[in-house]
């Protein structure tokens, strides 16, 4: 990672200006110029160092309801259950974790009322109970990933 890439990761995760020429303004702060910054961001997105460049929305505050779900699935049945869970469009992401509760996924729905039937459907399809762990409070995050 070169100096500019490191500066982008460490200093440009937030605070990108809302101005007429924001890349020029941000570039000045980072000690480079507009064209170089734009080219570098394109390269980083292409290489996968950045997943996105732009506003990071809080999906919950935009409206809709979310919950984190956990399941304890026997290893021999894991792939079948993963396929059933992932087939629901409301399942936004799903991670395997090294734990008795080995499957963790997020459900995103238009309203809280839609979540319970979805969980019931997943339990019925898979034959395993689901822990429903909605976020009750989020705590302020001071800093972000550094490079």
């Amino acid at each position, binding site marked *: 990672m070169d100096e500019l890439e490191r500066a*982008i990761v460490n200093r440009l995760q937030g605070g990108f200006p809302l101005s007429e020429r924001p890349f*020029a303004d941000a570039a000045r702060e980072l000690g480079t110029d507009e064209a170089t910054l734009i080219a570098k961001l394109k390269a980083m997105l292409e290489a996968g160092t950045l997943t996105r460049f732009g506003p990071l*929305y809080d999906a919950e505050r935009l409206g809709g309801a979310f919950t984190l779900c956990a399941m304890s699935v026997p290893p021999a049945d894991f792939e079948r259950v993963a396929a059933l869970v992932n087939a629901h469009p409301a399942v936004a992401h*799903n991670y395997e974790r090294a734990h008795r509760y080995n499957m963790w996924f997020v459900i995103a729905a238009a309203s809280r009322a839609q979540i319970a039937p979805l969980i019931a459907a997943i339990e019925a399809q898979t034959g395993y109970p689901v822990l429903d762990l*909605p976020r009750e*409070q989020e705590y302020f995050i001071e800093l972000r990933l550094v490079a």
Partner: protein
Amino acid sequence: MNALDERIVRATQAGLPLVAEPYKAIAASLGIEHSEVLSRLEAMLADGRIRRIGAVPNHYALGYTANAMSVWDVADHTVDELGAQVGALAFVTHCYRRPRRLPDWPYNLFAMVHGASRTDTALKIEIIRTALGLAVRASDVLYSTRILKKTGLRID
């Protein structure tokens, strides 16, 4: 959320156009004024619908390959104060309070930690343990071993 905000969210949730005047490009694509795009984005930033505007790095590409969810059982009357302390630690990327589900799940505080190795991540989790001190009644660590699905949270 009003219809204009929703159109702006749709137009920008995958990223800003990488051109010299990105907000002007968005305004043109939506057939609205440049100043309207800026004022709606400012409003969403102010009320928290936008967390921040900038680069969203890929954990794995930065070398953060040992990703763990640390979970803690702390007393309800202290969880908010402790959660704020844990969230303030530089290496914690998300920190939430969630309900316990007894007897299966006794943990009410969740902190996501990313590290370059499990040793690195485990050290960071020990820093959380120290910060929480005697308040910890039980804890566990769940390393992610595979992404099974990742479509992101989007409005469509």
